[in-house]
């Protein structure tokens, strides 16, 4: 059976993220207007579906990885679980002691936090083995293009939703979009320099 390539994985994750963005733009604003509880629950949980699909994709990716990739996934997931778990404990205790005011919406950030720490940890582990941030960096799409694309999508969403989004959300989308595009540009420059050094 052919391995689940980085390219296939990235393509499917991009589709899931596009669906998630669509849900957040089109469907999520309806949650506040609906009064019946079952429908409210249903609408509130629709954005979770593409995220569950991403988790399934990750599980498949890890299952079909080779031994070194699995080792890197394991270390990355272990470190991210430890960091997010410790942060949750600290936040929870401070909240119970009324030192920090946290509401339930903070739970939305647990999964993105896990993924961010996992990506960072795996990148560090991959560097130790002389690899890039991604196991098959030469097989998938250009990373800088993906970052620029993701940043562009966020900026487009901010522009399209400028009439309905509040200042905080607009600012977050614009900041994240610009940050991702800047990261993409930095990766592009780094790649060009690396290629120039190696004479490619």
């Amino acid at each position: 059976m052919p391995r689940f390539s980085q390219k296939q994985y990235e393509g499917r994750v991009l589709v899931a993220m596009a669906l998630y963005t669509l849900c957040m733009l089109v469907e999520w604003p309806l949650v506040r207007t609906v009064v019946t509880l079952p429908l409210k629950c249903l609408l509130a949980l629709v954005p979770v579906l593409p995220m569950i699909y991403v988790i399934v994709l990750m599980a498949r990716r890890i299952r079909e990885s080779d031994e070194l990739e699995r080792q890197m996934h394991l270390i990355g997931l272990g470190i991210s679980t430890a960091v997010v778990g410790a942060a949750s404990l600290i936040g929870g205790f401070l909240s119970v002691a009324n030192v920090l005011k946290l509401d339930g919406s903070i739970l939305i950030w647990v999964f993105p936090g896990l993924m961010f720490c996992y990506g960072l940890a795996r990148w560090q582990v991959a560097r130790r083995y002389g690899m890039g941030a991604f196991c098959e960096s030469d097989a998938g799409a250009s990373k800088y293009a993906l970052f620029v694309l993701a940043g562009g999508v966020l900026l487009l969403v901010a522009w399209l939703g400028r009439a309905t989004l509040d200042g905080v959300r607009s600012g977050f989308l614009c900041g994240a979009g610009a940050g991702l595009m800047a990261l993409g540009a930095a990766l592009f420059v780094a790649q060009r320099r690396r290629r120039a050094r190696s004479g490619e």
Partner: protein
Amino acid sequence: MNNLIRELRAERGWSQAELAQQLDVSRQTINAIETGKYDPSLPLAFKIARLFGMPIEMIFVPEEE
């Protein structure tokens, strides 16, 4: 652990990607093994030995202490 994989691969004219495909691992894993940054598991080491038609101890040589 030192190994002769790079030399054996070069003798056969295979690229890292071609060897990786035959062993069902990623090209980066082959690179990490060749550069000594990663020691393969016993099943993968046997697979490599079988592919090159050599005993495992001829390919993988422990570093002297």
